[in-house]
């Protein structure tokens, strides 16, 4: 009986040894695949960096040197033409034309000689961005494969350890003569072998998907990203549809398609795509923030608030999501909570600037984006209330008058904070004592005797080259910091900014600040809506609008 038992144990040990050899082979194979995928990921990351640098260098030359030189010659030609110097105009036009041979950007399909405009985004995409996107996806796929094989290899190490323990127990069972101990060791040993074998089998059968095996999906995704970069959201969506069809579990496709659909105003479809991406494991704050935006525009304010609160709790540095949370609260009539949320977001901005100042660095551009984004959100709510139509449905806004009043108050606060942080490095303090009245805009008309008159109005004909703002003032002090910001079609053009100390005394009438000056023969104000804000020591003192007609 004893010899038979030992013989049985010996056979078991032999089987376990064979199993161990098999699992060791699996482990080695998984480890090799892990190494290979890791190598591919590193290699792709380096290649992506190289392509990005060389492509950016090329594009920088094409736009900032070749095109700018062409543009300069074209402007000189136009100016000469305006002066009546046809010979010079022809010279400059001929020189500009000859520049076109220097860069593909100055040739079709990127260049329109009739308008002198270049499709630079398309050029960037064709030159390197599409390839960089493709490499990025291949890198992401390789990294995922590496992770998967790494997990498998580590699991096999655990199986090998269990098998080693079971070998030890079976060896003990064979070595000792105590019957009960033999049974315990052999039963536990066999149980461990069974667990390790089943687990190793399950690990072996677990598939490792490699997106690189489906290059058509990556190609369609890269095309979609390229279209989105060029601002063609509909074409982007079609490309993402194709990618999703080829590779239904391609999570990045749903994020990108959701973003494209958000831009297209298809909020239900956008939310569905973001949810799909979430189900596939993507939980980035930016995507969750976008999902909340899609819910907000559907009027699902409670869902948006819950999600935004979750994002803000996990990622308190996402200022734009904090402002979105504030917007969701204010539009749903939770005015006290909204006020507190906006204040918290503004405090976060103040803290970031203070930390940057203390560290001797500059705050990120995300901060300024977040602050202007906050204002845009409040402006949208106010427009909804004023127009009575739009998305989300204005009928969903409880107590619109109170909402509008709070939105106006918060808008001013954020604007003032932005100017204070940007120009003074701290939030503005005190109350506004300056009084700016009768703000108007006018085109200067120069008399032969050197006198200047103004054609006052809010709408000007196309082709004017100068506009000034005119106002009466009181309560000013010399040395106060004046900041003028000009928004063209709701977007600030920093080249119009005026930052200067006040030096015109305490009060006066008809004070003129030239906004756009006629500095060349060719400059004209483009057709657009212009909004002007004037700040005194960081406090909003006046604002007004004018339009240039087509």
């Amino acid at each position, binding site marked *: 009986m004893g010899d038979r038992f030992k013989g049985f144990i010996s056979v078991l040990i032999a089987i376990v040894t064979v199993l161990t050899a098999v699992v060791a082979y699996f482990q080695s194979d998984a480890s090799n695949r892990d190494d290979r995928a890791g190598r591919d990921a590193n*290699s792709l990351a380096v290649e992506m960096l190289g392509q990005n640098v060389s492509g950016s260098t090329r594009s920088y030359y094409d736009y900032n040197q070749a095109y700018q030189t062409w543009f300069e010659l074209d402007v000189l030609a136009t100016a000469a033409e305006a002066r009546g110097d046809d010979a010079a105009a022809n010279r400059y036009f001929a*020189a500009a034309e000859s520049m076109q041979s220097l860069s593909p950007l100055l040739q079709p399909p990127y260049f329109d000689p009739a308008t002198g405009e270049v499709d630079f985004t398309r050029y960037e995409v064709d030159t390197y961005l599409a390839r960089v996107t493709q490499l990025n996806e291949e890198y992401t796929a390789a990294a995922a494969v590496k992770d998967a094989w790494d997990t498998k290899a580590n699991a096999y190490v655990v199986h090998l350890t269990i098998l080693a323990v079971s070998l030890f127990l079976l060896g003990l069972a064979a070595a000792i003569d105590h019957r009960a101990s033999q049974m315990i060791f052999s039963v536990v040993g066999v149980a461990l072998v069974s667990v390790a074998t089943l687990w190793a089998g399950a690990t072996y059968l677990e598939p490792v998907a490699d997106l690189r095996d489906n290059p058509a999906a990556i190609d369609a995704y890269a095309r979609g990203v390229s279209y989105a970069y060029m601002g063609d959201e509909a074409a982007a969506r079609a490309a993402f549809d194709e990618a999703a069809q080829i590779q239904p579990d391609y999570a990045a496709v749903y994020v990108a398609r959701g973003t494209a659909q958000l831009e297209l105003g298809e909020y239900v479809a956008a939310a569905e795509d973001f949810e799909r991406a979430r189900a596939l494991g993507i939980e980035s704050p930016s995507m969750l923030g976008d999902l909340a935006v899609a819910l907000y525009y559907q009027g699902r304010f409670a869902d948006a608030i819950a999600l935004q609160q979750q994002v803000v709790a996990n990622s308190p540095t996402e200022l734009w999501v904090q402002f979105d949370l504030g917007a969701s609260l204010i539009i749903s009539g939770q005015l006290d909570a909204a006020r507190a949320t906006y204040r918290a977001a503004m405090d976060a901005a103040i803290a970031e600037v203070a930390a940057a100042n203390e560290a001797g660095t500059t705050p990120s551009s995300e901060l300024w984006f977040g602050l202007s984004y906050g204002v845009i959100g409040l402006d949208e709510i106010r427009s909804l209330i004023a127009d009575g139509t739009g998305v989300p449905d204005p009928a969903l806004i409880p107590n619109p008058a109170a909402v509008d009043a709070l939105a106006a108050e918060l808008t001013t606060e954020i604007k003032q904070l932005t100017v204070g942080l940007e120009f003074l490095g701290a939030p503005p303090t005190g109350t506004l004592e300056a009084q700016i009245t009768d703000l108007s805009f006018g085109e200067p008309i120069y008399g032969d005797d050197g006198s200047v008159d103004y054609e006052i109005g809010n709408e000007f004909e196309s082709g004017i080259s100068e506009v000034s703002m005119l106002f009466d003032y009181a309560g000013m002090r010399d040395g106060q910091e004046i900041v003028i910001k000009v928004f063209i079609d709701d977007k600030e053009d920093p080249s119009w900014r005026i930052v200067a100390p006040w030096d015109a005394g305490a009060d006066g009438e008809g004070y003129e600040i030239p906004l756009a000056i006629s500095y060349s023969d060719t400059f004209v104000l483009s057709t657009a809506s212009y909004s002007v804000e004037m700040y005194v020591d960081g406090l909003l003192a006046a604002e007004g609008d004018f339009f240039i007609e087509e």
Partner: protein
Amino acid sequence: MDKTEEQGFRVPMALIALLIAITSVAGAIVAWRGSIAADAAGDADTAGLRATINLNETRALSAVVAFGDYGAFTQFYRNRQLAQLLEEDLAAQPEDATEEQIAPLAEELVDVTDSATVAQQAFPNEYLNRDGTYALERQQGQLFADEAQERDLNPSANFAEADQARVKSEQLLIAFSVLAVALIAFTLIEVVGKYAKYLMLAVGSLLLVAGIVGTILIEMGRLA
């Protein structure tokens, strides 16, 4: 007296001991060769990554240098074109043209010619083509070729070598496993009954030969 002899089966213990010893030594050699192959795979991967970095660094730096030079050429080209056009306009002036008509053109010609002369110093003139254009691709190609003389810019060769070494290490692991099973077969001769002893001896011997021959073939590259 061992059991084998007691039961009347003649498998000499000395032979079994010799086979176990041969199998153990063969296993150790296979494990050593496998370890060397795995190490070679790692080294080749590192060399491949180094070559990838070299390649992309060269690509990026040659773009930076070449387009920097091309930017200087662009200024030169602009001013040279304007100079040529001004010369043509000056030549086309009527004989009775006044000094006031000619002077601005002549001054501008001097300015743009001076600017062209200065710009011409800022890029390597050997890449100027006869037709006055710039051989950008030739410059980039030359920069690339110069680097290729100095450094390894071919990652794919290293990666292929790494893959080959990895396959070899896996094959040697299989050979090692075969020898391990042979070792078990020899060990079991002690405990199994009657005819099974001969079966174990046969299986063990077969696996031992298979493991050794397989290893030799792997080392000779016949199983790649």
